[in-house]
């Protein structure tokens, strides 16, 4: 029997599937009695206030918002029922697709950029260095500092020709670099700001995952002649895959829903260049006073987020099984 077939058989065995077929040997779940006892009712009664509160705080606003997305209301008027017209209008609106495009760019750069930087710092911090704790705290600062403060700092760094970064760019012979006024550079700046603000979270996630990896595995790999790169690619990455996927899911949600990072730095400009879907939803509701279309945008965002989350969760389950 070849090594690969042994591995495959072991994998099937872990899944509880027989060697010869699709589950003939798998243990059948035993059916337990589902009779509700007095104790069950009592415990349910205890849980009821919390459940009711949860429904009131979460479900009611969602249902109410769903109804609003089907109406032509404003902030002070519930308007008339328009069915799915808000959704069809939005989906045929160029501004929506432009915002969706930037949201994708912002999210992809935000997730993978912050993950890469976070992973590098997490790997570096595994080595013992003097005052390592101080470095850890300093590296956490972008995550800890309120976005209002950091966006103001970044504005100070890049906004005017006399700001430090444009001055440096000018000294480097790059001319008058307009970090926020040029549409493409504004997108780049906002994405870098997002990576800067998010990498500490990724660093913490990756550091905790790396801490759980047994060092004996690396020693064994070294004995087998594996290079550092091979150890990282074939041991580290697979062993931290589960945490990586979870962090990607969380960061995807953070990025898609990130309002302050963009709004405080550029307000979505210049000329909508950095307008993400959540900023568009906000502007539609609170500056154009069009509640229906604004909430519809938010619902479409939620739908896409749920799809992405489900796909990534399936990936996690796959990692667990293997």
């Amino acid at each position, binding site marked *: 029997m070849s090594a690969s077939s042994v591995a495959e058989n072991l994998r099937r065995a872990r899944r509880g599937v027989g060697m010869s077929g699709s589950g003939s040997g798998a243990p059948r779940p035993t059916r337990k009695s589902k009779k509700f006892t*007095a104790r069950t009712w009592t415990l349910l009664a205890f849980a009821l206030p919390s459940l009711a509160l949860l429904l009131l705080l979460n479900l009611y606003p969602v249902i109410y918002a769903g109804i609003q997305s089907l109406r032509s209301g404003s902030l*002070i008027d519930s308007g008339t029922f328009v069915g799915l017209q808000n959704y069809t209008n939005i989906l045929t609106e160029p501004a929506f697709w432009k915002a969706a495009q930037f949201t994708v760019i912002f999210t992809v750069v935000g997730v993978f950029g912050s993950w890469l930087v976070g992973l590098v710092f997490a790997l570096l911090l595994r080595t013992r260095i003097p005052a390592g704790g101080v470095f850890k705290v300093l590296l956490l600062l972008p995550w800890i500092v309120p976005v209002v403060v950091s966006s103001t700092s970044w504005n100070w760094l890049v906004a*005017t020709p*006399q700001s430090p970064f444009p001055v440096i760019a000018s000294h480097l012979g790059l001319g008058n670099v307009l970090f*926020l006024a040029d549409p493409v550079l504004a997108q780049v700046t906002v994405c870098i700001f997002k990576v800067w603000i998010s990498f500490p979270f990724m660093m913490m996630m990756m550091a905790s995952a790396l801490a759980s990896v047994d060092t004996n595995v690396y020693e064994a790999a070294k004995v087998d002649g594996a290079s550092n790169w091979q150890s990282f690619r074939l041991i580290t990455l697979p062993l931290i895959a589960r945490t990586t996927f979870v962090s990607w899911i969380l960061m995807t949600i953070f990025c898609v829903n990130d309002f302050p990072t963009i709004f405080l730095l550029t307000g979505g400009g210049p000329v909508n260049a950095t307008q993400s879907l959540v900023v568009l939803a906000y502007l539609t509701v609170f500056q*154009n006073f069009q509640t229906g279309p604004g909430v519809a945008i938010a619902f479409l965002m939620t739908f896409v987020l749920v799809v992405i989350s489900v796909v990534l969760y399936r990936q996690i389950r796959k990692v667990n099984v293997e």
Partner: protein
Amino acid sequence: MPTQITSSAFSRRAFLGGAAGVASIAVLAACSSGGGSGGTSSKTIKFWNMPWGNTTFNTLDKTITTGYKPSGSNGAATYQVIQWANFTQTFASAVSSNTGPAVSSGGGTQAFQYAAQGKIAYADDLIDSWKSNGLYDDFLPGLIDTMKTDKGYAAVPYNLDMRVLWYSKSLFEKAGIDEAPTDWQSYIDACKKLKAIGVYGWGQGSGAGNFTGSHTMVSHMINNGGGLFDENQKPNVVTQNNIEAMEFMLELVKNGYTDPAAATYTSANVQAQWKAKKFGMGFDGAALNQNVGGDFQTDLVVGTPLVGQNGGKGALYFPNNIMMYTNTPSQKGSEAFLTYYYKNMAPLWTKNTGVGLPVLQSIADTAEFKANANAVKVIKEWQPISKTWASPGGDALFAGVTVADGTPAMSNFTQSILGGKVSAKDALTTLQNALKSA
């Protein structure tokens, strides 16, 4: 050892009994709190005001409000500061749930929005009563009419926000400019001289939360006899007057008279550029010199209104106002309070609380106000020629102007002009479409 709850120790009957007890307490507590919070009469007038000035404004304003001694059956007044952050949501939720104020200030177009929803108590009776006590005649010319709708006066003017021409005396001297510009051509000439010393002549910004840039655009349209709305209160922006005004703006951009990064400048960035002496001239609010602060309080001065290409003058201004709501314990009480308030609000201006310009001539005539030469010039030269968002179709505001007041459509339009890569007609056509679809 943790306590284990068992069915015998905690029966369903006991649980339900306990739950009923808790519910009763909650109900009783709710009842008692209603009465307990009393001390205020059922006819108390709730007055909500915004932080219009510096930190002393609301303190003094509260003192004026609570100093109100109602006569007859009218109720006293309570005071609440509403922060600008999310104020539209604050008012919307309060008004729609009938927990809002009886009297308030707020956004410049707020009264007209709520009037369209039937939430505003029109001020016609109040204004009529002011005709006999002198208050009506005390308002600056044309101001009260800006509040008039088909159904009546939606609000009463309270303070003025204006967009006026500012310049730096020291930079003008350095650039060899002897006289402040008086028309578009002399404005361009001054910009050219300022550029020669590395200073921008059209100091501007249209970044996050900064709508001054878009105000300036509309102000120049009005300056040339144009504007955003026609006599039917519909957007009509692709007009010859507006095209000429925007071509003037584009000329300033293309000649390098404006900061290339201005499209994304916040108010703080704009003020920083004035402080850095990078801006030598520009359009801004009537308190720019105080906002920039330091030596600039005396160095920055207000210029005279420019004569537009069509030979006329004009600018955009915002008559901020106070409105009364239908949800009041007593309409007579609301009106009595407002009469008291307007007769006693002068200290808000004479004690330097930072509030906008006054709407009453008697306040503008006080010695304290006259000490501010820039403010006096604004009231004397700019207020009479200024018009509202409703121009050129009319001067009275209406709910429809909200499509232009601080909206993304206006910001995009301004940023596209400041980018300098559009034609005036194309930019105005895009704006027209955006305003019509809003």
